[in-house]
Structures are given as structure tokens and as C-alpha cells.
């Protein structure tokens, strides 16, 4: 018994050793970000539908003029686990955009209204055009942006709220802005959000902080549409495994009792 305890202590020691080091190396990379209590955090996190819908509105009215989100399809807007717009609403959203399709039987490309099956349209046809229109900087595609940045949703939130006057001794180049939370503090995107910038369809007051929260939530969903399904299934599976472990443990003890008695 003592041996078992000693072994467990050794394991815990090594494990905590690893965890401390792991945390340190991750922390070494990240700046102190603004943190928000996200509804999708934690083991039982889910998305707030209202926030996702408002977030979509922010993307559509504010961000989409420069940022593509090309891996998302319009049908995703009505699927489970996301903003869950009604099928009709999602169809109308899709139809409000013009898609270039073709070639037709005359060999020409033509424009048609969007369908659910179409991917979100891009503001620029390619990366080079995006760079040229934005002073040489490419506004990154946002499909997996939340997963592509240390800090995830908190990073997006912090950047949007992190614009301020640079300190005295900080040299800022032309066409570049100072952002407290951007690694290196230089960012080519100007401060976009301001109070009352848009009118939320659900009547919520569109403060800068509210919009930042909503777009961060929307982008988290865009990066991880399976989050809710993942949490739901995961909970059931781990519960199942714990019960199974218990049963198998008892079976093992019963089986081995005949050996120990020999």
C-alpha cells in the first residue's frame, strides 16, 4: 500500500513538473489579454445564439469589406450549434449576395444570387488584391482565426478594444496604428469599432464592447462549429468510460482474487 502511495506521489510530482513547464512555455508567448467570461468556455460551454446572430451582423456590416471568411457556407448559418437562423432567413441572407458562376453554355461567367450551398463571398478575389487595397497588409481570412491565435476569443476581443495612444518613446510608422495587445504593438487595421456603429436587429445597444464580444463569439463559432456537439458527446463518453472502468475493475478484482489466494 505504501509502495502504491509512493508511486502515485512520484507520478503526481512528474505530472505537475510537466504541467508547470507547459504552462510557462505557453504563457511566455502570450501577452496579458483582456478576458471575458465566454458562454462557450469550460466543459459545458455552449454558444449564445443571440450573440452569434449579432456577431454575424457585425461581420457582415463591418468586417466583410476587408476580411474574407471563405471556409464558411451560407447554409452553416442555419445548422445546429451555430447562430441557428431559420432556413428562410439563411436563404435570404445567401440571396442578398451576388455569386459569380459559370461558364454558361455561351462560355461566359455570370452573376447570380447566392444559395445556401455557396461559400461566403470574398471582398477581394485573391491575397494579392487584398494586400494592394490595404497598404500591403493582408487582412487575414477569419474562418479559423480564433484557433490561429494564442488566446483565441480573448485575443480578438482584446485587439478590438486595445487601440490607444502610443507611449512617448514608441516610434509609429505611417499607416500603422498602435494596439496594446498586438504582439509588437503595430497593427495595420485602424480602430474600426465605435459606439452605435450599427443597429442590432434584436435591439441590443451596439456599444464597442458589445460588438467586440459578439464578433469574438461569432468568430469562435466559425472556427469551431462542432464545439457544442463535441462537449455534449464528450460528456456522455467520459461518463460511460468511468462506469465501464468501474465494472471492468470489479471484474478484474474478482478474477484475480483466485490467484492471490493460491
Amino acid at each position, binding site marked *: 500500500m505504501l509502495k502504491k502511495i509512493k508511486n502515485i506521489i512520484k507520478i503526481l510530482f512528474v505530472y505537475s*513538473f510537466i504541467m508547470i*513547464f507547459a504552462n*510557462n512555455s505557453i504563457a511566455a508567448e502570450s501577452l496579458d489579454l483582456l478576458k471575458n467570461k465566454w458562454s462557450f468556455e469550460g466543459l459545458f460551454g455552449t454558444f449564445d445564439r443571440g450573440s452569434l446572430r449579432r456577431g454575424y451582423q457585425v461581420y457582415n456590416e463591418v468586417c466583410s469589406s476587408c476580411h474574407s471568411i471563405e471556409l464558411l457556407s451560407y447554409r452553416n448559418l442555419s445548422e445546429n450549434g451555430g447562430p441557428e437562423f431559420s432556413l428562410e432567413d439563411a436563404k435570404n441572407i445567401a440571396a442578398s449576395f451576388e455569386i459569380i458562376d459559370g461558364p454558361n453554355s455561351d462560355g461566359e461567367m455570370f452573376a447570380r444570387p447566392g444559395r445556401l450551398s455557396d461559400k461566403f463571398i470574398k471582398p477581394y478575389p485573391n491575397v494579392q488584391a487584398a494586400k494592394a487595397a490595404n497598404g500591403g497588409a493582408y487582412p487575414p481570412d477569419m474562418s479559423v482565426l480564433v484557433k490561429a491565435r494564442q488566446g483565441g476569443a480573448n485575443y480578438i476581443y482584446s485587439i478590438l478594444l486595445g487601440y490607444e495612444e502610443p507611449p512617448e518613446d514608441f516610434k509609429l510608422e505611417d499607416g500603422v496604428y498602435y494596439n496594446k495587445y498586438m504582439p509588437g504593438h503595430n497593427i495595420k487595421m485602424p480602430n474600426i469599432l465605435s459606439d452605435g456603429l450599427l443597429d442590432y436587429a434584436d435591439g441590443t445597444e451596439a456599444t464597442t464592447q458589445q460588438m467586440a464580444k459578439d464578433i469574438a463569439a461569432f468568430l469562435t463559432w466559425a472556427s469551431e462549429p462542432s464545439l457544442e456537439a463535441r462537449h455534449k458527446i464528450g460528456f456522455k463518453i467520459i461518463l460511460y468510460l468511468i462506469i465501464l472502468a468501474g465494472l*471492468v475493475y470489479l471484474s*478484474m478484482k474478482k478474477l484475480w482474487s483466485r490467484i492471490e489466494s493460491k
Partner: protein
Amino acid sequence: MSEKKFIPKSKFGQWFDSRLPLLTLSHHLSDYPTPKNLNYWWTFGGILTFCLIVQIVTGLVLAMHYVAHVDHAFESVEHIMRDVNYGWLIRYVHANGSSMFFLAVYIHIFRALFYGSYKSPREIIWIIGMLIYILMMATAFMGYVLPWGQMSFWAATVITNLFSAIPLIGESVVTWLWGGYAVDNPTLTRFYSLHYLMPFLIFGLVVLHIWALHIPGNNNPVGIDIKKPSKDTVPFSPYIVVKDLYALIIFLIIFAGIVFFVPNILSHPDNYIKANPMVTPTHIVPEWYLLPFYAILRAVPSKLGGVVVMFASLFILMFLPWLDTSKIRSAVFRPLYKIFFWILVIDVIILGYIGANPPEGLYLLVGRIATIYYFVHFILIMPILGFKEKTIPLPISISDPVLSNQARTISNR
């Protein structure tokens, strides 16, 4: 190990078995005498086999949807995550499965180091195991390139560039590996082909590994040979099967916890940025299980030196059965070696931590010391310890420790 001839119960069984002795094999495996004092560190062989099968099955299924072309690879992985039924699950299982595979293999290797499982007559088992480990690292490295993220691309660039250190032919070797003048589409497609192939080579080596094991039989925590199979062993089925199963379920709980709740915790955010040959990430870091070797590589100031020392750190393990001169197998009876074992564990963890950080300042100094110590352990400490160490007297047999009070505290159950 001599066994009575096995006669299948049914006539069909006898007809089949006399032509292809699968039933005899199955009977051997199920009756296989296993030491009865094995502790949970011995369950990781079974866990590893499970991990290999999981990786092969999930990989096979991913291959039905993945496109190995630089213009489509990243998007095809996202297609799997978003559109393919349960694609997100299969992808996260495969990506995190690789980490779990390495976690299990490191525990398995350190078990061997602690209990002297690599010593005579099990040297070939150990060497095959080392070959499996090398193939695992090659497979994992190539697999990580396939999603074609920033880390995929730059890890591929850095690691293939290592070969340019080879004198005279280095540059040609690298061009040959790349199939071009930089990591690009030809590199991706050949990595895909090899990534698909190597797990099956691993599988073949695992069969040899287990076959070689079944000749002398398993080692055990006390490290002494079986004297009386009837008293010291239990048939593999059901006793070891159920114990392996229990350990596997606990392992799966950890696996499921990661896959379902923190599936990206072991990966690098930069790999969710599509590969860009024009922009290098601020820090190029491999996956955690390759970090100690990465630290050793960067500890040496010369490029060729770094490559040689890194490969040496791997190959020196192959010679361990001969570097360790002790006649006693298990660290249970080697109090001084036990201390050095744990120091080695800490040294490897430190190397891993160093590998995750930029090779400068204090990190570099510690990395160099840790690298030197690693080699000191194998080249100096192991041989000398065998001669100089005062060991604890061994018990007479595996069953005996159960009976005597004094020995009770020694055996691990």
C-alpha cells in the same frame, strides 16, 4: 518454452489448423504464461497496440477525404472538420491520438529503463522497439506536414534542411528529398505516401517485437527469471487481458478528455494559418514529443555537429544493453541506479522544456548542460554503475516475496 501440442476441438478446426496454425497461435497467445507480479507499467504494450490500430483506422478514414495538394490540403482538412459526418471527431482523434501514442511509448520505454527489460536475453526486443520508435517519429513528422499549416511547412523546411549538413552530398540529398528547390507540392505528396506506408511497417515490427518477447517471456518488476511457471505465472487470458483492458479504459478517459474538451491544447495555433513560404513564424516548434531532440539539435553550435549529436542521442539507446554492465535487472534492487534513473527523467523533461523555447541566453546554457548530462548518463554512469554499485539482495523467486514479510515491501503490486 515447450508447450503441449494443441488439438482444436472441432474437426474443421483441426483441418484448418494443420494447414495454417492460427488456432494454435491463438491458443498460445491466450495461454501464454505471464509473470503474475506485473504492475500497471506493463499495461502500456497493450495500450500502444490499441493506439496503433486507432491511428491506422482513423488515418485510413481521413485519407478518404484529404487532398494532398498544396492548393487544397488545408481546405480539405477544414472540409473534414466542417462537412464530413463526424469528421471533426475523427480528425481530433487522429491528431491527439498521435500525442497519446507518444505519451504511452515514453512511459513504455522508461519502464524498460527502470526494470532492465532491455538486458540479456531481451536485447533484440529492445532494438526492434527502438526501430519502432524511430519509425513513429518519422511517421508523426510527415503526418504533421499534411495539414499544410505554417508549422507544417516550416517544420518540414527546417528538418529536411538538416540533411544539407552532410558533407559533399548534403545539398543534393535535400533537393532529392524535396523533389524541387524548396518544400512544395512534390514534397507534400511523397510525405503523404510515406505517412500512409510507415504505420504498416511499424505494425510488422510490432509483430516481430511481440514474437521476440515470447521467446524469453516477459520481464517483471523484480527482474528475476521465472523458476516455476505454475507458481509464478498466470495465463495471459483472462488475467492479463482484463488488466490491460482496465488500464486501457483509464487511458481512454484521458484521451477522451483531451479530444472532446481541449483538442487543440497540444497543438500550435500557427498551424491554423495556411502555409506561406514568404513568412516564417516567430518561433518554429515541433510537437511536444519531439522537443527533447530539438533541444539537443540546437544545443550544439555547429550545424553538422547538431545533426550528428541529435542522431547519436537516439542511436546510443540502441547500445544500452551493452552500456549497462550491471548483472541486476530491476532498479528495485539497484538503489543508486534508481536515483540516476529519475535524474535522467528530469533531464529529458528539462530538454523538452528547452526545446519549446528560443535557443538563447539561459535556455541555451541549460540545454547544453542537459544534453551533456544525457550522454554522460549513458556513456559514463551506466557502465561504471554496473561495477561499482552495491545492490540489494534479490529474492529467490517471484512468488516468495509474497510469503515473506521483509520482501513484501519490495514487490510492486
